[in-house]
């Protein structure tokens, strides 16, 4: 198992972090906890991109994609926090299970 590091190691690590991110998104009831889960998932995608960039293309394209992912994550976090602030101002809690006013 402890073979020379190759592409597969990066992909497996990425898969594990991805699943943990999904688990985090599913189990946290704090809205910001869900956001943290999303960040984990994005990170796992970045690990994949960097792994492929290193072991397959050898050019910088994977890294550049990863830069865009980081940028999108920053944008997404800024918007999400702004939305959570409004949610908190309206509902007085950050528990997403309480945001069910629109349920029929």
């Amino acid at each position, binding site marked *: 198992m*402890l073979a020379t*590091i*190759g*592409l*597969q190691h990066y992909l*497996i*690590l990425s*898969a*594990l*972090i*991805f*699943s*943990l*991110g*999904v688990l*985090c998104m*599913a*189990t*946290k*009831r*704090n*809205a910001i*906890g869900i*956001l*943290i889960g999303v960040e*984990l998932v994005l*990170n796992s995608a*970045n690990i994949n991109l*960097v*792994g492929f*960039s*290193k*072991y397959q293309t*050898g050019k*910088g*394209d994977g*890294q*550049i994609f*990863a*830069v*865009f992912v*980081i*940028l*999108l*994550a*920053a*944008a997404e*976090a*800024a*918007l999400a*926090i*702004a*939305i*959570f*602030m409004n949610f*908190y101002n309206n509902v007085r*809690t*950050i*528990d997403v*299970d309480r945001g069910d006013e629109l349920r029929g």
Partner: protein
Amino acid sequence: MIEDAAFYIFAGVSLFSAIAVVLSKNIVRAAVGLLGTLGGVACLYFLADANLLGVIQLIVYAGGTLILIVFGIMLTSQSPWVGFLPTKVQAIAASIVAVILTIGIVRLVTLVPWAQRNPDELSQSLTVKSIGDALLTTYLVPFEVASVLLLVVMIGAAYLARTEK
């Protein structure tokens, strides 16, 4: 050999921190766990010859986004120790889904015979210059679109978070 050991160490750090993120009941601890994951992954980038990306990860992700998240946590918590725990059904269902996901993806990854480049070529590292050149030539359109997107997000976030008059 040292690089292999370093990979396992950094991968272990990021995985351990990610597990801490999932298991922690306190949301600030989850954020610290995410910081650990980000740091470990940044070290992995350094290991994979992506120095610039690693530093960008530290400066934008750890220094900007995560601080923003911590800031959001502080503004929206009534008390430091309030944690919202999932119900048992939620937790069990989510764990089952996550386990199935893990097994599925790992199986897929190990099944596919990934084409790998010659290890001798691997050592050549990418310079900052080549990445900068690519960003301003091949990837110019996404780069500009991203800047417009950031502007839109900035305006949107400022509008959403404004104080009521």
